């Protein structure tokens, strides 16, 4: 791929990125969240067909119009969310959309069976009955089936996006064996991971992206860990973001030995996490994709119901984790990381969204007091500088930044003691970002504690008084003062065991 660029509206997601891929190698694609890895991958496998630059496959320029087109050229991607159909059999999944046909126009199931068995054998997987539905097998096997599907298409390039995030240790080893086997058979693999040990275990070469730009490419042996981290960070620290309010000594919020299971209760998303936050403090949580940071906030807030293990204290009193409603009553607020799907009710008006979490204030004895509500909404509109000509407009008519302010206003309206902010500045314009930083300063000055997740590292560093770093559901570092550097954070976020402060 040469000189690939991609723009979304006004922002450039990729600018002049090149990557070279040889048969039989595992090529690591590294970079922080938002560095442009997924955009690049989507262009390569035909999801985005509009881009600048060119792709050359075996000395021939190609342009893929769709994922199917890319697949025909031998490029297959295995995403984190598997694309298998749970209730269908293994062989049917492998040949989905490309069924082997008999002459009379019916599906040749026996040919599919034989072919699937052959592919699975090539991958070194035993004990999979290709007639059983895939849902009966663990995720690791499903992933193998995805790989088998890719092989059945004669894919020469297989893209794996964080394939180990849901796997256990032995399963990871099994996957690596498979990858080694694929390399020997001449397949090229693009491998995206946030785990340092994996990079050095299976990678042959590495390309580093940062902010949509190409930074470096080298054989893995030539890029030491420190050099890799340096390449990945290197973002300008933003001097304009200022942290002004003072942190009190008084502890406000404490979490002890918390485990958070996923809603189905199959496995822990967060393991044995403890931390505390003081009055007026902004506690940053850093973590790359799959670190469990977001799940930690959702879990504390009660979005997954009661926690399986651990305890939480607010103002020295036990805090009951049961449901969002209960958490709000106790003085907690959670700004979710996706305002469109979990933050706002887009079809409702601005007023109705602002007051949604604090309706009892405006409806004593269940009866709505509309003038009270209007007045409060107007107050928050001014306080947060929401730009809207009419508060009765649907919230979906606002720009991203103003929508985010409406979501924030909703939570400020509940008068919380602790604000959990998950990506408060994602996808909004610069001016709105700065307004939100300003608001965070104001709220901490008023005695709130803020627990902040953001994938923009300069923002995190500038705003946080202390930072905890998470990796695979556990805390891998606690940083304070001078030790808050991009390098330290990234080392810990990629699972480098370093001395813990």
């Amino acid at each position, binding site marked *: 791929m040469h000189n690939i660029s991609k723009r979304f509206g006004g922002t450039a997601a990729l600018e002049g990125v090149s990557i070279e891929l040889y048969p039989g190698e595992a090529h690591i694609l590294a970079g922080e969240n938002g560095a442009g890895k997924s955009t690049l991958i989507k262009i390569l496998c035909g999801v985005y067909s509009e881009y600048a630059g060119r792709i050359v496959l075996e000395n021939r320029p190609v342009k893929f119009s769709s994922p199917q087109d890319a697949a025909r050229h031998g490029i297959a991607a295995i995403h984190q969310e598997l694309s298998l159909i749970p209730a269908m059999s293994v062989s049917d999944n492998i040949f989905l959309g490309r069924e082997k046909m008999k002459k009379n126009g019916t599906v040749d199931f026996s040919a599919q069976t034989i072919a699937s068995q052959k592919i699975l054998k090539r991958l070194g997987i035993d004990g999979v009955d290709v007639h059983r539905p895939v849902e009966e097998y663990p995720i690791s096997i499903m992933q193998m089936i995805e790989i088998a599907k890719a092989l059945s298409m004669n894919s020469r390039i297989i893209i794996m996006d964080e394939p180990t995030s849901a796997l256990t240790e032995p399963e990871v080893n099994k996957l690596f064996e498979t990858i080694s086997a694929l390399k020997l058979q001449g397949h090229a693999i693009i491998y995206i991971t946030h785990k340092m040990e994996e990079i050095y275990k299976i990678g042959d070469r590495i390309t580093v992206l940062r902010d949509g730009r190409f930074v470096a490419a080298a054989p893995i042996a030539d890029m030491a860990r420190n050099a890799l981290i340096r390449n990945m960070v290197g973002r300008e620290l933003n001097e304009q973001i200022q942290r002004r309010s003072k942190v009190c000594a008084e502890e406000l919020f404490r979490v002890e030995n918390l485990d958070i299971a996923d809603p189905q209760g199959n496995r822990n998303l967060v393991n044995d996490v403890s931390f505390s936050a003081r009055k007026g403090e902004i506690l940053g949580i850093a973590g790359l994709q799959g670190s469990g940071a977001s799940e930690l906030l959702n879990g504390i807030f009660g979005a997954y119901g009661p926690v399986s293990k651990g305890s939480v204290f607010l103002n020295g009193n036990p805090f009951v984790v049961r449901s*969002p409603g209960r958490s709000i009553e106790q003085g907690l607020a959670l700004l979710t990381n996706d305002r469109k799907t979990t933050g*706002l*009710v887009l079809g*409702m008006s601005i007023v109705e969204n602002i007051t949604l*979490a604090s*309706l009892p204030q405006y409806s004593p004895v*269940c009866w*709505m007091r509309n003038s009270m509500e209007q007045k409060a909404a107007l107050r928050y509109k001014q306080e947060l500088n929401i730009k809207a000509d009419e508060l*009765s407009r649907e919230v979906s008519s606002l720009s991203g930044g103003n929508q985010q302010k409406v979501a924030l206003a*909703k939570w400020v309206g509940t008068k919380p003691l602790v604000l959990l902010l998950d990506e408060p500045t994602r996808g909004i314009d610069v001016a709105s970002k700065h307004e939100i930083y300003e608001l965070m300063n104001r709220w901490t000055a008023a005695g709130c504690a803020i627990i902040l997740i953001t994938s923009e590292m300069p923002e995190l560093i500038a705003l946080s008084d202390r930072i905890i770093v998470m990796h695979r559901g556990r805390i891998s570092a606690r940083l304070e003062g001078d030790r808050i550097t991009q390098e330290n954070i990234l080392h810990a976020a990629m699972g480098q065991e370093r001395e813990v402060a």
Partner: protein
Amino acid sequence: MIPLVSNTSQKTFISRLMQYPVTRAILALIVIFVIGLVFNGGGAFFKWPAHRDMLRQYSVFGILACGMTIVIITAGIDLSVGSMLGLSAVVFSLLTIHRDWNPWHAIPACIAMGAILGVVSGGLISRFRIQPFIATLAMMVFARGLAKFISGGMKISTSIQQADGSYIYKNDPAIFKMIDSRILDGNLAVVTLIFIFCLFISWLILSRLRIGRYLYAIGGNEEAARLSGVPVIKAKIFAYGMCGLFSAIAGICQAAQEYQGDPEAGVSYELTAIAIAVIGGTNLMGGRGSILLTLFGTLTIGYLDKILSINAVSEAGRLMLTGVIIVSAVLLQRRRK
């Protein structure tokens, strides 16, 4: 009303007006009304009794549609309203005619029964996460079965079979006559008054009470509502409970107008109730709609039926025309971008 689409000054006054769902609902009604003025059944459409009788006949459907609107706003559906109407009609007739209950005991008993069955549906849907379609389908079959069981498959009327096979005859209970009578010099049926009352209650719930806001939020984005502390389970149970309650009221009205409790009453009424809500402009995806729209929906469907009836259109023609009109009305309702 809340405008649904952002305002741009270039648009004409009419097209701006058409952004409001209420305007579109009124327009559909006007179209039907004009058809009535043209095909007036030998002038019958120009006389008040035609309108009064339409209101009487569609009051029962309108009451069902009130409950249906509340449920649809939460992005749900209740298929059991017709069966619940039948069950309530049977129980009400049984209590007042056979058991000689005082109506002021029988009415609350029936309403409570409807509300409880609605709460059961709501519990299955919210607490046990059964799809509304399935849960209320089960309730629809169950309530019909219960109505037949209680009535023994017979209409509960004023002729009562004795153990020896002979019949005794009772007078119509006063409450039946009262509900089936008219007020204002015979110009408004009592059931229409009850319908207006149900409209008012629904309006209070949806527009004036906190729970109403919760219902819209759940229909608009259930996950966001839940994360904003909205008691989703309680609110849904409430919605289905109200729907059951309104069905029971409709059943009482139906029984009083037939002077009997027919266990087969209300078959396929749920479809009419859904059609009314949808024609009014309430969105089956939830989160949008209002009781005012449901009122217009009731009038639109009611007038359509009345016009077909006074012109003595054949059954086959009515079915086809009704299908065409429903689709046209919904197309007319569609939001323009």
